[in-house]
């Protein structure tokens, strides 16, 4: 066994919509197949969490009810999370989780739910729901990812992320937050087919369900590499896995995205 990593799964019970659990499964299995021990710690509302020991934090999407319940608890942890993110803690946040890592979420009634401001962005609820298969191009954006911090850069050959978006919030990025990528197919943060997600240092936000990481194994591996570098101060060269099935699911999603219409209702 190689030295291990710790993943903190924030609010697994409240924020578990649309198969986001698959991301944890992907990280666990991809570590296990390489003899890296990945310990998953679930943190519920009110639970103590030792973020100093965390190497990756994950926050998925939730229903509105789930989101309101956790927003308050998350605010209490804001300073600790921020402090670690500044030092390169790896974070993956999806949909509702991405929104709560922004400055605020404005509900359809006009109330503002404050986020923890990791990402310089805010989200406004809209009547229209943005639903469909998504293909994101990261070729241009990848050079701007975690520009502020000295970490291994992504150099792999893969240039796309695929998944499924389903959100009614529109997320507007400020200057302090870079897009995860630009849409080839799909509607994205603002519903206009422009950019998708947000990146600050080693924190990533996205609207991609699907689940995301199983179908984008290079991205899962990249997150593991970043986490490993932060913990052990050296670059790890991850053993190559047979990703035939992953690649074919990735490609099948691209094919389906090209033929199935994106809904906007």
């Amino acid at each position, binding site marked *: 066994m190689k030295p291990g990593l710790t993943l903190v799964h924030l609010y697994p019970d409240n924020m578990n*919509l649309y198969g986001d659990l698959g991301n944890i499964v*992907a990280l666990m*299995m991809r570590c296990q197949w390489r003899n890296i021990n990945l310990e998953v710690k679930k943190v519920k509302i009110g639970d103590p969490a030792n973020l100093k020991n965390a190497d990756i934090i994950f926050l998925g999407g939730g229903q509105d009810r789930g989101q309101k319940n956790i927003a308050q608890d998350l605010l209490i942890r804001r300073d600790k999370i921020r402090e670690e993110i500044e030092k390169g803690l790896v974070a993956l946040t999806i949909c509702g989780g991405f929104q709560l890592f922004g400055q605020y979420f404005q509900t359809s009634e006009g109330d503002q739910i404050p986020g923890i401001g990791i990402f310089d962005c805010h989200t406004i609820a809209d009547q229209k729901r943005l639903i469909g298969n998504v293909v994101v191009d990261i070729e241009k954006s990848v050079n701007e990812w975690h520009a502020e911090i000295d970490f291994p850069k992504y150099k792999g050959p893969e240039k796309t992320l695929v998944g*499924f978006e*389903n959100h009614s919030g529109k997320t507007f990025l400020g200057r302090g937050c870079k897009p995860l990528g630009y849409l080839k197919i799909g509607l994205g943060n603002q519903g206009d087919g422009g950019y998708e997600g947000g990146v600050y240092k080693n924190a990533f936000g996205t609207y991609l369900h699907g689940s995301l990481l199983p179908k984008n194994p290079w991205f899962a591996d990249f997150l593991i590499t970043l986490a490993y570098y932060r913990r052990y101060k050296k670059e790890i060269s991850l053993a190559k896995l047979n990703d035939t099935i992953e690649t074919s699911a990735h490609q099948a999603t691209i094919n389906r995205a090209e033929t199935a219409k994106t809904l906007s209702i």
Partner: protein
Amino acid sequence: MLRFLAIQTANFARTASRLSQKGSGTTLPGLLAEKIDPNILSNLAQKLPDGIILITGTNGKTTTAKMLASILEASGKKVIYNSSGSNLSRGISSFLIQQSNFFGSKIKGDIAIFEIDEATMPEITKKVIPKIIVVTNLFRDQLDRYGELDKTAAIIGSALEASPESTLLLNGDDPLVSSLQKYNHKVRFFGINDQIKTNSTGAIDSKYCLQCGAELIYDNRYFGHLGVYKCPSCGFKRPKLDYQLSELKLQVESSKALFLDSNRNKALLEIQLPGLYNLYNALTTSAIASELGIDIKIIQDSLQKVSAAFGRMEKIEINSKTISLLLVKNPTGFTQVIEMLCYDKKPKNLFLLLNDKFADGTDVSWIWDAELELIKDQTASVVVGGIRAEDMVLRLKYAGFSLDNISIEKNTPKALDLALANIRDGETLYVLPTYTAMLELRKILYSSGFVKGLVE
């Protein structure tokens, strides 16, 4: 006069639509009739002497409607129910028109059973006053269509508010459903009192108190978020049950349990259907039938004879092999089917079909919330097909299945041949398709003469 005109137009439209072979004639007639006479549905509904039973909820509507129809028929009632139809308002109108006489003054039935999609409830209750409204359960299903579960509950709530005269029958074991009691005062609850526990540890759809947001404590959890729960903070809890099942005995092909009604009448129910979810269906049905005053003996006898509804553990003989069709459409339902298949430890031969058309839900993410892990060491062979077969194979890989046993074939007829070749004479192939994949599979089986009809 309007009603007469509306009915004649509808009849004409149905014939025309069938003759032109453009449709099955299930919604257009009602759409036209509602345009001519907006009150057509309420007028026709009033002609039913024993009224209307509305069944809504995520899982179990079709089986419950089917079980209830057989009980009511056995008790001598003439039952009409929308088994093949569209369950939108215009589909219901079409259906009632079809069952009415030339003038629309009489309907050929005593009682109607309608299974209604959650989102259609408000539209229906605007037009009819049901005698009983039943909510089976609320699980995540095709979220890309309806939004989120809490919203679904609120939509049903608004329909209940509009029906103060209806009796409400609620699944007390489902906190989301039991919380609907606040919308209506004539409420009765059904549920299970047993020691049986789920093996599933996965995602629970509704774990938090709807009144105050605290985490619910479960004395016992049967499956998903169904169980005996209480809120430690505000006192919200599983309500006192008017109708209950206890002493459950579950097997792969059949189930037994003791039914107790509100007057402490007891009956041992035996059903030839597997799984806890079918016992819930039997319980729901028995509760409705008891509410309607049907004798407990008739309930007991009729339930014993009920066979599986369309694609719900439906058995089809193919020469000397058997296939068992188990529709899967949401994570909880999928996990339930998996748990049921694990009741016996023999290695299973599986055929999984994953589509992502509108009726399946266009987002396939939900398969990551189904606990495929539970059966990973109990499969002899797996064939995977459907539009999103690659996604399903990926799910199986990460669930820890041995890849040597898995084949992928996206051409459904070929995939079926492959899956059947995996089993010997006398063995059963368990087929788990999503909705449109099941329809496609039935078409294939129909054209080969293995099933008689395309719809029930």
